[in-house]
């Protein structure tokens, strides 16, 4: 307003233009103000730590001589580190097997609850979701006691059945961890699928009923397509989750012997041990960044693939 009165009255079009620019500029500034709190926090808790990790990864910490600039030596070492790849292959394999099983269970449960043919679905929904609320440390202790063959529940099971199954040998520990993770996250994923099913307009079912579709046809033609978007989301969440497995292999070795869990069992565990028992923070930072890049790449691949399918379908 002030600018408008100061401007010479002889040239109205120019004045209008200038005022418009100022207003637009002001609006833009106000917009920045609105998102400033978010930006500051985002910068502090997200961008800065990533760059700091990147900075750290260029150094090697030595007991004699302190921190030494190492350039990309940490990364070179990492790519040739068989222990690192051992962990990566292990979690990749784990993801490839555990995630489909878990999501299949979640989908079946969501469909069952949505079928309106069950009693007590609210109770069921909550019960299945509840393990998600149990801290991973508590659940690992609990499963460790249940699956232990010496004094745990499994010893009795083995006695009854006359078997000699040990859930914590080097070749079975990963399966046991898979059971723990599946137990914890099936309910969570089920809720995502269920909320997708809930958002299907009721008219579609009515139309299907009018057309004489049976339940299987309804599931195939209406419910599966409705869940497809959620499927991409749950797959991405699950991949991120399984690539970061840490609690279970961290706690189990102190409960059971000869479980085959090493200090580099998963990449996250390896990073932890490098940083905290090996004092190799730089190397651990390099590992964390490479793992993050891999996870992001896989998550994007899944998302692009999922979107393309959604478009085609």
């Amino acid at each position, binding site marked *: 307003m002030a600018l408008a009165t100061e401007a010479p009255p002889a040239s109205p079009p120019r004045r209008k233009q200038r005022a418009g620019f100022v207003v637009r500029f002001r609006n833009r500034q106000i917009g920045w103000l609105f998102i400033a709190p978010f930006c500051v926090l985002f910068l502090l808790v997200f961008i800065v730590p990533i760059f700091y990790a990147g900075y750290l990864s260029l150094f090697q910490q*030595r*007991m004699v001589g302190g921190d030494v600039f190492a350039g990309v030596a940490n990364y070179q070492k990492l790519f040739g580190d068989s222990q690192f790849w051992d962990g990566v292959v292990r979690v990749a394999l784990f993801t490839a097997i555990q995630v489909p099983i878990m999501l299949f269970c979640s989908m079946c449960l969501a469909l069952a609850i949505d079928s309106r043919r069950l009693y007590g679905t609210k109770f069921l929904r909550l019960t299945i979701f509840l393990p998600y609320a149990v801290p991973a440390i508590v659940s690992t202790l609990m499963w460790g006691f249940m699956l232990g063959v*010496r*004094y745990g529940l499994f010893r009795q099971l083995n006695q009854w059945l006359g078997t000699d199954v040990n859930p914590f040998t080097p070749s079975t520990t990963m399966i046991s961890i898979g059971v723990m993770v599946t137990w914890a996250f099936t309910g969570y994923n089920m809720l995502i699928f269920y909320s997708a099913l809930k958002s299907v307009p009721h008219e579609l079912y009515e139309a299907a009923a009018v057309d004489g579709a049976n339940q299987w046809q309804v599931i195939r033609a209406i419910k599966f397509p409705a869940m497809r978007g959620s499927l991409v989301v749950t797959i991405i969440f699950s991949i991120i989750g399984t690539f970061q497995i840490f609690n279970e292999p961290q706690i189990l070795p102190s409960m059971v*012997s*000869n479980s085959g869990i*090493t200090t580099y069992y998963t990449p996250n565990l390896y990073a932890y*041990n490098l940083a905290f*028992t090996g004092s190799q923070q730089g190397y651990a930072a390099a590992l964390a960044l490479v793992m993050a890049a891999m996870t992001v790449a896989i998550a994007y691949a899944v998302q692009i693939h999922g979107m393309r399918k959604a478009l085609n379908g």
Partner: protein
Amino acid sequence: MRTMRLSSKQKIIPWALAASLALAACSGDTTAAPLDEADGDSATGDITLTVWSWDATVEQSVAGFEAANPGIKVEVANVGSSMDEYTSLDNAIQAGSGVPDLVMFEYFAIPYFAIPGKLTDLTEFGAQDLENDYVASAWSNVTMGTDAVYALPSDYGPAVLFWNADTFAKAGLTEAPATWDEYYEAAKAIRALGGDYYIDHDTGDLFGLLAMIWQAGGRPFKVDGNDITIDFSEPETVKVLEFRQKMLDEGLLGDSVTAWSDDWNRALNDGTLATQNMGGWLTSSLIERAPDQSGNWRIALLPQWEAGEKVGAENGGSSFGIPTDAAHKEEAYKFLEYFTNGDGLQPRVDAGAFVPNLSVLDSPEFQDASNAFFGDEKTGAVLAEASEIAATGWQYPPFFEWARTVYADICAPLYTDHEGTLEGVFETWRERMVEYGNEQGFTVK
């Protein structure tokens, strides 16, 4: 004037708040003490010492010390055991704030802090004069074989053999094995009981094995400043590895119970686990772990490699040192001497601390102490003797904390799939240590 003051204060407060928040965020609860301390300094002239300890008996000496030294307050904080504490200390030193005045270290952790210069040499306070009150091995741990004194021993773990007389009796044995050959024969007799009965379990127990090497005379680690030699090929070391290998090959050692696990407590308590080659510190907690075996457990000296000899070893133990960056070194040493040698020692001993001070070990009270849990055996005398015969000259490399975690990885295939031999495991372990040590700036061979 008044308004001016107010406004400048107003300006400062948010910054101070932000700074203290940032500090608190960096190092958690550890900053609380130094902040209090700063307040104390300006207000009353009192000094507050911050002590990091997971040994609860230190607390017993605080009241007496504060009464005898007005103006010095002591705050004992448990910031975690072992590795957790060392990590916190490393962080505090790196951050340059919140460094405590006194810190507890296991003996093997002393070189890790002493070699990079993070520990004060206590000879400037006259600590070298205390040498004669300590068992020789404990003293050589804190001096690392040099003229400097980096810490004062606060508790001790003489390697001893805990044995269950009831289980031995079931196997027809009445005496603790005096030699390792007798131990081997006892292992066979106990294994013959069948079921879960074993003389011991081994799932990669490094410290028990090192204690045996220590006792046999092997000295695989030699540390001289930044030059480190690692050698597992000495005949004394090889002898121990071969002995252990033989026991493993013949299935005389169980492979399903790891020390400190819940399974372990149960095995100690149901009598199926017949012996434990551990430090004397197990004495107090064994009573809690195996209440059903009350009256059955005994303590004996480690079996000997040669009949008629009396050589001991060490299995754990701790000390307290003063970080180079500590704020109140002189007062810290005062308290350190008080609870490790002065009037503060006895209250700790009464509370259950096992200390390497000869004045305590040789005292009649200690020598005559017996316990119904151990069948009224005079355990004090056994533990004192085990401490005094512990062989000296053992050294740990400064990166031992790292090395022990890696050892678990390397020995896993041997213990789970019976792949390879113990000697092979130690050779791989040596190679990994050489690689890591050189990366860390040492000269390792």
